[in-house]
């Protein structure tokens, strides 16, 4: 290997990609999206309260209506009416009311109620749920009162409990640390996703770059000057540097944007209530799990974050990213060498996308059940281990497991890089025909 020529190749690959418009656009758009994703839940919380609905109520049971109280935050205003349904319906557009609510009892017992809503615009799921809850509460209040027992409302309130679960982990010395499972889940999810995205995006980038050189026919001139392997690895390193540049810019820009937005919107964004709302939204929104996850204090969040093995996580992130990327990028390069346009890669890519997707899905299992066997094996098998191990790490992984996993991965990287280089060397010179798996195998065995 000639270091000077590899440097020239890396530099071209790097600057050519970094100077592209698409690179600049993605570099600046993604942080804006990230920042929005972080700020938006809080913003929504702030503005959602503003929504108010005026509800005209026609209560045929005549019992619910008095108990429908205007909301403390004045989002719902109920006004009674006893006109006929039809006249109210036709009057709705000009009545200044948003919704017409018709309540009909199915029986005298009030056990079954039927409610109909009429509105000019379709109702949101939230509004419907809110109305439902209000009516139910109204019926409940009415029935409690009907018992005529003194102090019953207070008793009923007393029966309810408020439950919060706090989790602690104990180490061998018996020291306890607050550990909020939601935080582990989030960190684990972010790590797994990052590696997955990194590998798919930039592995694919290497493949496009290989195809570009073959399709434009510049490749034969190139390999008359440098070795095919120098070209391939120069390209892989160049794209890796692009990836690192982009990620650093994303982190810096996202942090800057969030800081900026936070400063502008004001401190109330970061009140406890909002932080809770954000965590809830992020958790339930992300995977649709545990919507009633017990919300912890900001202090607990910080303690949990601080308790994670960050040194290990960061070190492993770089090791797994590097090896995982090398593994897939070299295989992507081999596939790119077999074709002359991206459309032809679909079939050849399948053996790469399946383990990647598998890794991603196993990592989802990992942040719900980090100790399950599928997660253990997923973090050992080299094609999924970069993604799965990263998702496992926040929960703590024995050192020997990490060591075995890394050694296995490294061996696979060496094997695949060697095989890919062999395929690549032959493939880039095969013009005018699309290689199949059979061809790739033949090229691999060629001397």
């Amino acid at each position, binding site marked *: 290997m000639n270091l000077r*020529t590899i440097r020239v*190749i890396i530099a071209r690959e790097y600057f050519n990609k970094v100077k592209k418009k698409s690179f600049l656009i993605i570099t600046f758009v993604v942080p804006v999206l990230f920042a929005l994703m972080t700020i938006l839940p809080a913003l929504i919380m702030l503005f959602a309260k503003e929504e108010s609905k005026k509800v005209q109520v026609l209560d045929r049971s005549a019992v619910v209506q008095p108990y429908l109280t205007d909301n403390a935050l004045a989002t719902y205003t109920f006004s009674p009416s006893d006109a006929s349904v039809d006249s109210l319906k036709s009057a709705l557009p000009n009545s200044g009311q948003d919704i017409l609510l018709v309540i009909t009892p199915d029986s005298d017992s009030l056990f079954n109620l039927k409610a109909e809503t009429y509105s000019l615009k379709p109702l949101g799921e939230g509004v419907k749920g809110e109305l439902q809850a209000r009516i139910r509460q109204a019926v409940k209040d009415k029935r409690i009162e009907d018992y005529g027992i003194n102090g019953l409302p207070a008793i009923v309130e007393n029966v309810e409990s408020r439950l919060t679960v706090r989790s602690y982990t104990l180490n061998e010395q018996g020291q306890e640390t607050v550990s909020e499972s939601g935080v582990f889940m989030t960190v684990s999810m972010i790590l797994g996703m990052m590696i997955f995205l990194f590998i798919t995006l930039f592995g694919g980038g290497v493949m496009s770059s290989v195809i*570009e050189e073959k399709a*434009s026919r*510049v490749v*034969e001139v190139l390999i*008359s*000057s440098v*070795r095919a392997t120098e070209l391939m690895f120069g390209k892989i390193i160049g794209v890796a540097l692009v990836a690192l540049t982009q990620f650093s810019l994303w982190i810096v820009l996202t942090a800057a944007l969030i800081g900026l937005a936070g400063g502008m919107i004001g401190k109330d964004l970061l009140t406890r209530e909002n932080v809770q709302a954000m965590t809830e939204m992020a958790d339930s929104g992300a995977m649709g799990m545990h919507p009633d996850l017990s919300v912890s204090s900001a202090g607990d969040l910080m303690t949990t974050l601080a308790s994670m093995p960050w040194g290990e996580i960061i070190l492993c992130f770089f090791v797994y990213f590097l090896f995982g990327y090398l593994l897939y990028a070299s295989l992507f390069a081999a596939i790119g060498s077999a074709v002359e346009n991206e459309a032809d890669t679909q079939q050849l890519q399948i053996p790469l996308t399946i383990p990647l997707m598998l890794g991603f899905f196993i990592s989802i299992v990992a942040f719900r059940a980090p100790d399950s066997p599928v997660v253990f094996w997923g973090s050992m098998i080299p094609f999924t281990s970069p993604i799965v191990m990263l998702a496992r790490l926040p929960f703590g992984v024995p050192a020997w497991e990490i060591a075995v996993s890394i050694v296995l991965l490294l061996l696979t990287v060496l094997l695949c890089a060697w095989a890919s280089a062999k395929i690549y060397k032959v493939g880039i010179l095969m013009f005018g025909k699309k290689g199949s798996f059979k061809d790739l195998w033949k090229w691999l065995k*060629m001397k």
Partner: protein
Amino acid sequence: MSLISCQHISKRFGTKTALDDVSVEIPQGQIFGLLGPNGAGKTTLIRIINRILIQNEGAVLFDGRPITREDVARIGYLPEERGLYRKMKVGEQAKYLAQLKGMSASEASAELKKWFQKFGIASWWNKKVEELSKGMAQKVQFITTVVHRPSLLILDEPFSGFDPVNAQLIRDEILALKDQGATILLSTHNMESVEQLCDNIALINKSRVVLAGSVEQIRRDYGQHHRSVEYTGKPLAAVPGLFELVSDEDADERRKAMLKPALGTDNTALLQALLAQEVNILSFSETTARMNDIFISLVQS
């Protein structure tokens, strides 16, 4: 002396033999034609000289010693399957290719600017290749092939994609590079350029060298040593022991005859015999075969 000497080269791809015991000597400072039908193995031989492929058997000597990876910096290669990065600026990309051949960035820049001036394309420096026409891109490509002053130039179909004016420009440039001492390996199907440019050739057919030597000698050999005569007067008659008449026909106001001299007959004796037949000789020449015909007859047989 040979700049490149290919000795008993064999190359197999799996079960397919691309080159079978091929030996070719490319003399220093000459233009050497590498001919052959499609699929004969020319590109494989060129790739072996470029170290893109490694032969299974045989040796390639460069300047008398076995060729090494470092020697490719002294070779300029214009492949038949050629092209440039479409989305890269012309100047930047030419500089990149020159750097891969071992030039420093500043040296490459300076040399390229000279060539761009010479070809009248200095204004293209910051254009992207996709903005250029095919012929324009070919000019740039030619420059990238020669900018590092290679001692061996390998040109595979160098004239394809050029209009006649630019083809002439490239032809002149090739001859100028030869005058400056470069050795040129020219692979082409254009037999006219072979006749005009090449000193020596080798013809490869079905993985083997079937003909090699100087163009002049080959053309005379395949011309079967006939003499063509243009004359006026009464039709010629064959002279037993001196020459036979292969053909003799009327062409406008003159006649054209093809003579086959008997072995050992020299031109003086022939001319004397012709003059004795009281004809007025307009021209007398030794026939040479056209490379095109030689190529076709050898490849078909």
